C-alpha cells in the first residue's frame, strides 16, 4: 500500500454542477488535442519531407535509388543515392553482427545473475553507454578508434582473414583514414545498450515461466536458456535487433566523423564510404534550393525516416508478440513500453 501522506488540501466537494462538468470536459479536450498534435506532427514531418523531396524523385525516378553517381554541381546535377544506401546498410549490418551476440549475452547475464552487487551496477553501466552523446562517440572514434584500426586491427585482419577466398575480399586493407568497418564498430557500441535493454526485458518475461519447467526436467542452465528461453524469446530478441538496427540506420554525427566520406562503392569494408545521415549532415547547408540538391537530400531524409519508423513498428510488434506468447498481455505491453522508454 503506497504511503503518500495526507491528501492535498482542496476545497470541499461540490455537487456535479455544470461548471464542474465543463472543467472536466475542457481538461480532457485539452489533453486530447495536444496528444493528437503529436500524431499531426508526425504526419506533418512526413508531408514536409515528401513535399520537399518529390522533385528529385520525379526527375530521377528509380535511378535515384540505383544510380551510383552523385554530383550536386549546378548545371551537371546527377543524383544517384546507391553509395549512401549501400553504406548505410553495410555499417548497420556490421553493427548488428557485432552488437546482437554481445547484447543478448549481456541480457542473459543480467537475467541470470542472482547477485545484486553485479547486476545493478552492470545495468547502470550499460545504460551509461546509451547516454553518451553521439558527438563524443565521434570524437573518440576519430582520434582513438580510427588510428587503432588503421595501424593495428585492419592490417592484421587483412593479412589473416583477407587471404581467405571469397570473403577475404571484404577485408582488404586500404590505408589509413575513416572507413565503413570503423563506422560499423562505433555503431555497434552505440546500439549495444538498446539491444541489451530490450533483450533483457524479453528474456526476463519468458524465463520465469520456462525455468521452473526446465529445472523440473533436470536441464542445465545452458540447456534451459538454449532450448527453453531463447526459442520463445526469439521474436522479442529479433524485435530488439530491429530497434537496434533502426538506431544504427539513423545515427549521424559519430558516423560522419569516421566513415571516410567517399561516394565510391567497393568490396572492401576497410575502404571509405558514406551513409545517408552523413551525407545529409555534410551537404545540407550548402544544398541549393533552386536546383535539385536540396530536394534530393530531403527525399533521402524521407527514405531514412520511413525505414527507421518501419523498423520501430516491426520491433514493437515482435516484442509484444513474445510477451503475449508467454501469456501475459498487460505485462507484455508494460514490458515493451518500459524497455523502449529506458533507452530514451
Amino acid at each position, binding site marked *: 500500500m503506497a504511503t503518500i501522506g495526507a491528501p492535498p488540501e482542496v476545497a470541499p466537494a461540490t455537487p456535479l454542477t455544470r461548471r464542474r462538468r465543463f472543467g472536466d470536459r475542457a481538461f480532457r479536450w485539452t489533453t486530447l488535442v495536444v496528444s493528437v498534435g503529436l500524431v499531426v506532427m508526425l504526419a506533418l514531418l512526413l508531408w514536409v519531407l515528401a513535399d520537399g523531396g518529390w522533385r528529385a524523385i520525379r526527375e530521377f525516378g528509380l535511378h535515384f535509388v540505383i544510380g551510383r553517381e552523385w554530383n*550536386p554541381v549546378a548545371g551537371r546535377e546527377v543524383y544517384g543515392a546507391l553509395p549512401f544506401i549501400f553504406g548505410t546498410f553495410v555499417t548497420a549490418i556490421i553493427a548488428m553482427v557485432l552488437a546482437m551476440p554481445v547484447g543478448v549475452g549481456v541480457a542473459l547475464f543480467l537475467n541470470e545473475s542472482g547477485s545484486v552487487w553485479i547486476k545493478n551496477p552492470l545495468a547502470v553501466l550499460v545504460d551509461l553507454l546509451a547516454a553518451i552523446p553521439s558527438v563524443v562517440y565521434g570524437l573518440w572514434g576519430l582520434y582513438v578508434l580510427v588510428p587503432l584500426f588503421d595501424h593495428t586491427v585492419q592490417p592484421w585482419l587483412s593479412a589473416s582473414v583477407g587471404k581467405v577466398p571469397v570473403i577475404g575480399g571484404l577485408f582488404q586493407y586500404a590505408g*589509413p583514414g575513416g572507413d565503413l568497418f570503423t563506422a560499423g564498430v562505433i555503431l555497434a557500441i552505440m546500439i549495444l545498450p538498446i539491444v541489451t535493454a530490450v533483450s533483457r526485458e524479453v528474456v526476463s518475461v519468458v524465463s520465469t515461466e520456462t525455468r521452473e519447467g526446465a529445472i523440473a526436467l533436470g536441464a542445465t542452465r545452458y540447456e534451459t536458456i538454449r532450448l527453453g528461453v531463447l526459442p520463445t524469446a526469439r521474436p522479442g530478441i529479433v524485435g530488439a535487433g530491429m530497434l537496434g538496427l533502426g538506431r544504427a540506420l539513423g545515427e549521424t554525427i559519430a558516423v560522419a566523423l569516421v566513415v571516410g566520406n567517399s561516394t565510391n562503392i567497393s568490396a572492401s569494408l576497410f575502404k571509405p564510404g558514406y551513409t545517408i545521415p552523413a551525407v545529409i549532415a*555534410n551537404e545540407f547547408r*550548402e544544398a541549393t534550393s533552386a536546383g535539385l540538391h536540396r530536394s534530393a537530400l530531403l527525399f533521402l531524409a524521407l527514405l531514412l525516416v520511413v525505414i527507421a519508423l518501419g523498423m520501430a513498428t516491426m520491433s514493437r510488434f515482435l516484442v509484444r508478440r513474445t510477451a503475449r506468447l508467454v501469456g501475459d498481455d498487460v505485462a507484455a505491453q508494460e514490458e515493451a513500453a518500459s524497455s523502449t522508454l529506458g533507452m530514451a
Partner: protein
Amino acid sequence: MRIHRFARPAVIAAAAVTLVAAACGNTSSSSASASGGSNTGGFQGTALNGAGSTFAAPLYQLWSQSFLQKEPDAQINYQAIGSGGGIEQFTSQTVDFGASDVPLQSDEITNLPSSNYIQFPTALGAVVFAYNLQGVDSGLKLDGKTTADIFLGNITKWNDPAITSQNPGVNLPDEPIQVVHRSDESGTTSVWTSWLSAESPEWSSKVGADKAVQWPVGTGGNGNEGVAAGISQTEGAAGYLSYDFAVTAGLGIADIQAPDGSYVAPSIDSISKAGGGLKFPIQSDTNILNSSTKGAYPVASTTYVLVYTDQTDEAKAQTLVDFWTWALTDGQSQTEQINYSPLPSDFATSALKEVSKITVNGTPVSPTSSTG
C-alpha cells in the same frame, strides 16, 4: 494552480538560465548604443552573420576580432561551411554576406533573388599540395601532370618514377599515397580541379573542374580544416589545401611547376606575384592560375565576398560598409601574419569602389570616418 511539484522548479530553472544568458550577453549586446569601446562615441557597429569559404575563414575570423577594436558592437559571426554553402545561404538571404573562392557561375546568378549585389575580392591565397611524409620536408617538386595522376589514382606510390625523376636525391619511400579531398562543396576544390584540368587532359575529361567532383580515389574531409586534419593524422597522406592551413598544420608543401618550367614554392611573395593576373570586372571564369609573371605560384587564387547592395537595415549596412572598407585598407596589413597575401593595391581600390555601391533604403552608405 499547482501542476506538479517538480515541473515548476524545472521551468524556473530554465527561465533563470535564459535570463542569466541574457544578462551575460548584454555585456556584449548587439544594440547600437554606446557601450564604451575604444571608439569614442561614434558608430558602434552591430552584429552580422556571414558564411562560406573555409579557405578565407582564418582571415575573416582574424579581421572580425581586430575590427572589434574599431566598432565594439560589430560582432561579425563567420561560419565556415564551404563556398557552396556561402553561395546558397547568400541566395536564400539567411546571412548578411556570403564568401566564396570562386566567382558566381551563370546558374547561380540566375538563382539569385536580386541582381543588386556586389562581388569583390578580399585577399590572395593559394592552394597547395600538402603531404605528411616522414623524412621528406617541404619542397617536393611536382608538375601538373604528375599531380593529376596522383589524384586520378594512376600514381599510387611515393617512389613512383614520375615523382622520383623530378626529385633526384630525395629519399621517397615505397609507400602508398593516401589521397585526401573535400567532402563538401568547396571553392578550394574548384580552384584545384581547374588547375588540374588545365594541366591534364585525362583529368579534364574524366573528372573535370568544379566545387565538387567525383573523386576517383581518396577519403573526404569537411572543409580545409578537415583535409588538414586528415593529412596530418596519416603518415603518407597527401591532399590539396589552402596555403595558410598547410603552414599552420605543419605539413610538407610541394613546389609546383610553373608554365615556364621552373618550380615555384608557395609563399606570400610568389602568391602576390600571381595577383597581377586579376581582372575587373569579376566574371564567372576569373582566375589567377598559371600566371605568366616570373616567380608567380601557379595555383594562386583569390576569395570573394558577396553582398546585396539594396540593404534595408541601417545599422547592418553601415557595419558592412565599415568592416569591408577597413578590411580592404588597414586589414590588408594583417594578411601576411597568417600566410595570406594582400590584394595588389589597384585591385583593393577597385574592390572599394564596389563596396561604395552599398545603399540603405536607396541612400548610398559611406564609411564611418575613423576615430582611431
